[in-house]
Structures are given as structure tokens and as C-alpha cells.
């Protein structure tokens, strides 16, 4: 057990998986000698060499597509896109090939690869470096989408993603990369993809989030208790495709109220889907409209205004109180 930041925890998962399985290889821009712009791939190039850790040319479609090719060939590539805002350069390869080979070939050829990318705002970065557009992938059949919110989850879910037989989009909340440390077991640990977890049990209202907004959501949960004597249940989805509908439905059937929180744009975001499912499966239990505390439907602002764009505990509390006072 060691206390690790998320970066170190991810790095641990990479080391252990590369060690355990020679088919696991890493590629991406600056992941080798430079060890990744966030240092997630630290030590790998030195340890496993340039035939397992590839410094790719500057072409996202190429990185994604050659990884698909390598996966089809039998390797288990973990490709890094330097920032999720540049994944769109290879959108077509994800939609047309990565997500489809299993179905297209009736299971004969598959793409067991992981596509990692840091996402989300808050680090005073230039345009395109603060995106949260995970909803694109949630809308795309054939993909799994995993977003951890802390070091231990990051390590255990990346571990699971690497062994998953299907392609996994793995978004890493860069604001949390070094935000805090957590105990992470030394031995390989794997958490099941597709399962949410209740990080704070409660009875009055359900707060549903994942990834980068989990911290503020938990903070909001605490604030609701401290300031308003409200007992919120807080759920961390962890996987957003497939979604653990049961866990959220059960919670909302109990609490009757919910707020969904994410940084991504509101319209057609993950929150809309959560509301649709709760509408379908918890209709009779709902005592108030489900609120969305999300990114607005404008471009992520240049960073002088990013803090007012991002959901924070105050906004979540406000949303929760509106729901409770409905």
C-alpha cells in the first residue's frame, strides 16, 4: 500500500500490465523519452524500450488507427491522446473502426485497446485543452467509456480496461492528476467496468456524477449535511458506458430527488441520459424535476473565465436545494 496521486496510480497500472503481458504496448505523442506531458508514462520507456513504448508522429488519427491495427493483429495497445480536445482528429477512426470491428466481423476480429486522454478544465490551459465531451462516446455503440475520480479507482479501472476484450475510452480528469493522494494496493487490483459506487449513502437526495466533478460533488454532499441538514446520497458512476442504471435507479427510488453533475455541455450530455433513464425507471418515485448542474452550451471559455464556467460545490448545493424546495 502506498499513498499515490492519480498520475502515479495510473503509472503503476501501466507498469504492472506491461510487465505481466508482453502484448501490452504504449503509443502516443511524447509518451516515451519525455514520459508524457503529464508524466503518466514515467519510467516505461526506460524499462520496456522503444519497441513497447512508441513515440508517435503528430497525428491522432494515425495513432488511433495504427493502434486499432495493432490490436487487430493481436497486441493490446494503450494509446494516449495528449489532450481529449484533439481526439476528434481521429473521431472517424473511432466511430468507423475501433467501435465496429467486433460487430462487423461477427466477433471474428476484435479491438482490445484502451484510448487514454486527459480531459476537463481547471488548469489554466489554452483553448481545446479543457474539453469534457465524453457524451460523444456514450452515444457511440461499441465503446466503453470509463472515467475515474481518484487514484485508487484510476489504477483499478485502467487495469480492467487493459484486460477488457472491447475498446475502452479512458478519460482522466487532469485537474485531479495531482490533487490528492490515496492508498493504492501494491498488488494489481481490478474493478469491474460498468459498476457505479455509492461514495456517500444518504436518504434525502441523490447526487450523481463522475470523474472531474466528483470532488465538488462530494464537497456539496458534505455542505448539504453541514449547512442544510440534508442527507445526500452521492454516486460516482465511474463507467458512463455501459451505465450502472440499477444503482442510480435504486437510489432515486429511495430519495425521490436527484441532481446530475458534469462538466460537459448540458444538451445531449450524460446528464440528459441519466434523466431519461430515471424518467423511465423511477418515474413514480420522483418528487421533483431532476436538476442538471453542468457545463453550459457554450464553448469552454478561455481560462480567465474557466472557474465560473465549471460546476462547483456551491452550484451543486444550489441545484440540490432547488430540487428539495420544489
Amino acid at each position, binding site marked *: 500500500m502506498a499513498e499515490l496521486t492519480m498520475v502515479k496510480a495510473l503509472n503503476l497500472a501501466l507498469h504492472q500490465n506491461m510487465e505481466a503481458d508482453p502484448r501490452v504496448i504504449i503509443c502516443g505523442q511524447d509518451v516515451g523519452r519525455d514520459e508524457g506531458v503529464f508524466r503518466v508514462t514515467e519510467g516505461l520507456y526506460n524499462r520496456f524500450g522503444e519497441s513497447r513504448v512508441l513515440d508517435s508522429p503528430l497525428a491522432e488519427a494515425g495513432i488511433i488507427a*495504427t493502434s486499432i491495427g495493432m490490436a487487430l493483429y493481436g497486441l493490446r495497445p494503450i494509446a494516449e491522446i495528449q489532450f481529449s480536445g484533439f481526439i476528434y482528429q481521429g473521431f472517424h477512426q473511432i466511430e468507423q473502426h475501433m467501435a465496429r470491428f467486433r460487430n462487423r*466481423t461477427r466477433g471474428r476480429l476484435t479491438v482490445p485497446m484502451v484510448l487514454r486522454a486527459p480531459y476537463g478544465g481547471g488548469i489554466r490551459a489554452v483553448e481545446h485543452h479543457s474539453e469534457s465531451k465524453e457524451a460523444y462516446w456514450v452515444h457511440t455503440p*461499441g465503446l466503453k467509456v470509463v472515467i475515474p475520480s481518484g487514484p485508487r479507482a484510476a489504477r483499478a479501472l485502467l487495469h480492467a480496461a487493459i484486460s477488457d476484450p*472491447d475498446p475502452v475510452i479512458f478519460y482522466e480528469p487532469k485537474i485531479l492528476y495531482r490533487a490528492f493522494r490515496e492508498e493504492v494496493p501494491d498488488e494489481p487490483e481490478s474493478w469491474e467496468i460498468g459498476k457505479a459506487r455509492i461514495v456517500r449513502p444518504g436518504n434525502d437526495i441523490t447526487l450523481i456524477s463522475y470523474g472531474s466533478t466528483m470532488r465538488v460533488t462530494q464537497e456539496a454532499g458534505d455542505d448539504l449535511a453541514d449547512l442544510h441538514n440534508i442527507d445526500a446520497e452521492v454516486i460516482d458512476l465511474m463507467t458512463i458506458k455501459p451505465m450502472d442504471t440499477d444503482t442510480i435507479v435504486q437510489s432515486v427510488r429511495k430519495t425521490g430527488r436527484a441532481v446530475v453533475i458534469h462538466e460537459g455541455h448540458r444538451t445531449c450530455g450524460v446528464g440528459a441520459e441519466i434523466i431519461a433513464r430515471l424518467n423511465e425507471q423511477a418515474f413514480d418515485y420522483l418528487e421533483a424535476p431532476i436538476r442538471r448542474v453542468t457545463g453550459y452550451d457554450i464553448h469552454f471559455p478561455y481560462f480567465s473565465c474557466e472557474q465560473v464556467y465549471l460546476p462547483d460545490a456551491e452550484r451543486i448545493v444550489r441545484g440540490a436545494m432547488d430540487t428539495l424546495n420544489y
Partner: protein
Amino acid sequence: MPRRKLKLQHEVEELSILDVDGQVDTALEPALNHDELLRIYRAMVLTRELDDRMLKMQRQGRIGTFAPCRGQEATQIGYIYPMQKEDWVVPSYRAPGAQIWRGWHLEQILLFWNGYEEGARTPEGVNDLPVAIPVGSHPILAAGIGMGMKLQGTKQVVLTAFGDGSTSEGDVLEAFNFAGVYQAPVVFVCENNQYAISLPRAKQTRAETIAQKALAFGYDGIKVDGNDVLAMIVVTTEAVNKARRGDGPTLIEAFTYRMQMHTTADDPKKYRSDEEVKEWEKKCPLLRFEKYLINKKAADEKLLQEIHQDVIDEVQAGLERFEKCCVPQPDKLFDYTYAQLTPELQAQKEEFLAILAQRDSRNRKH
């Protein structure tokens, strides 16, 4: 402080061996025995025959829209010939002859164009990808496969084929670059059939040849008469050997012509003249190869006839197998999105099956 021409490390070549009259340049002629020559011939005839039959079937509504390949038989059989079983092929959608050569079942070609995923299911024991529909999206997968081979240190090679139009797609150019950077064992074959639907080659790119695009990525390009199966074999064999040696990729431009419409939904009269098509008819890859075989005494008219008949039978048998396979399997629709059905897909599948059942029972009532 000079101003001077840069000397490049690579140049672009041009090659043809067998002319339209079946005359061969003996200095360049590959050493193929009669059996091999006839096997090649048969594959070209099979490609032509299948194409003709599919066109009829399409017109009768027995298959959907497809992309005929008449005129491009030498190109595809030529480039597929040197490939070994353990090699990989990432095919174009206009080369069923190459796919069949590799071990795809004839009926799969028909299934593919008739709306059945079974037509895209690589047969067991075959190392190829199915046809990709998004133009230019697959050569970069081949580059990845080649990188995998390189990383694993095998002696395999991957070949990928694509059209002239495809070379405008960024993906194809990225493929050229990745293969070059990693010196991956990739053979790129551009089936330059002069058109991308209606767009003539000259409007696709200002480059005089497709072959020279290789220079941008630091390796050899070669332009070859794609209606000359011998030249195709020679050039591809060289490129395959080079790749197998570890000396990296090659770009081959097979200069050929699409004798038919782009797909059966297309009307080529809108954008090209009959005269042009007639000119190319003279360059038929089959005719010149037949002349060559006869000149070379590898076959006589009778043997050629027998081969034709044999091919007709084979195609006929395939069509019959195809008709039997044409049974939609809606109940399988949900089963291949993931290795395991996710809970949400499980629920949707149930909803879907209930609707199907309702429909079936109503249909039975009527």
C-alpha cells in the same frame, strides 16, 4: 551559401512488361511456370465472371448495389499473388478476386453486397481484414498491422489496396507516414483506375503520378501498368521481399481503368466519354494475358475454354450457396456489439425481441 537542387534519396520508377498485344519484355519477364501462369489466369477469369454475374444479379434485385471491378483484374490478381498465407491483406472494396484468392468464400462477396455481416467475417485461417467502406480509412490500419509485425519481429508482410481518390484522404497520407517512420513491412497498392466516382485523377491531385507521393514520406514509389499482370507480380514481389527483409514500405501505383460504372447506382455517361472507355478496352488485361499464354504455349484455346467453363461452374456453385445463406438473423443483431451483452443492451434486446414477436404473430394472422 548556395542555391541548389536537393538530391533526394529516392526516385520514382515506371514499369510495364506485357504490352497490349501480349508481347513480353523478356528481360523483365518473371519466371513463372505454366501451372502458376494458369492459376493466375484462372483467378483473373473468375474475377471477371463473378463481376458479370453480380451485375446481372444486381439488375435483377438479387443483391444490392455493388462496385464492379471489370478492367482491374490484373491489378488485383497481380498484387495478391506474392502474398503468403501468414501475411495480412487489408483489401479495397473493388477487388473480390483478391479476396477469393486469399480464401474468402465466394458467397461472402455476395453476402457483403447484399446486406449481411457474414460477408465481412474474415474466414478462419485467413489473416485479412474485411472490406472497409469509408474511403481511405483502412490503409492506416494496415500500417498499424505492419507496426505490430515489426514490433513482434516476425517475417510477415501486410499489403493494402485502395483507389486513386483515397490518396486525397488525410488518413492515407498518415498511413504512408507511419509506415515510413516505423519502417513497417507494408506494401501500399493504389488501384489508380482514373476515377473517384466522377472525379478524374487529374482533379484529385496536381501530382503527375500517385507513385511520387512516396517521396514525401521517404521511400520508393513505382508506377506500374495495372493491366499487365506480370508487371504487377514483379513489382509487388519486389516490394513484399523488401518489406520482409525489414527495409520498409513501398508505394505501388497500379495504372488501370474502371471499365464499368463506379457502383451500380452510378451513371458514368455523365462524366466520361464512350471513346475513352473504348480506348481502354483495347488494353484489356485478360486479352493480352491470353495472347501471352498462347504465345508461350502455356495454353491453347481449348484449355482456356475449359478454364472458363470451370470458373463458370465455380461461380454458379457460389451463387447457389449464397442464395441459401440469405436468411436475415435479426435475433443476432445485439450479440456482437460487445463481448458480453451489457445490461442496457440486454434490456433493449428484450424490447426488440418482443416487438419482433408481436410482428411475427400479426403477420402469421394475416
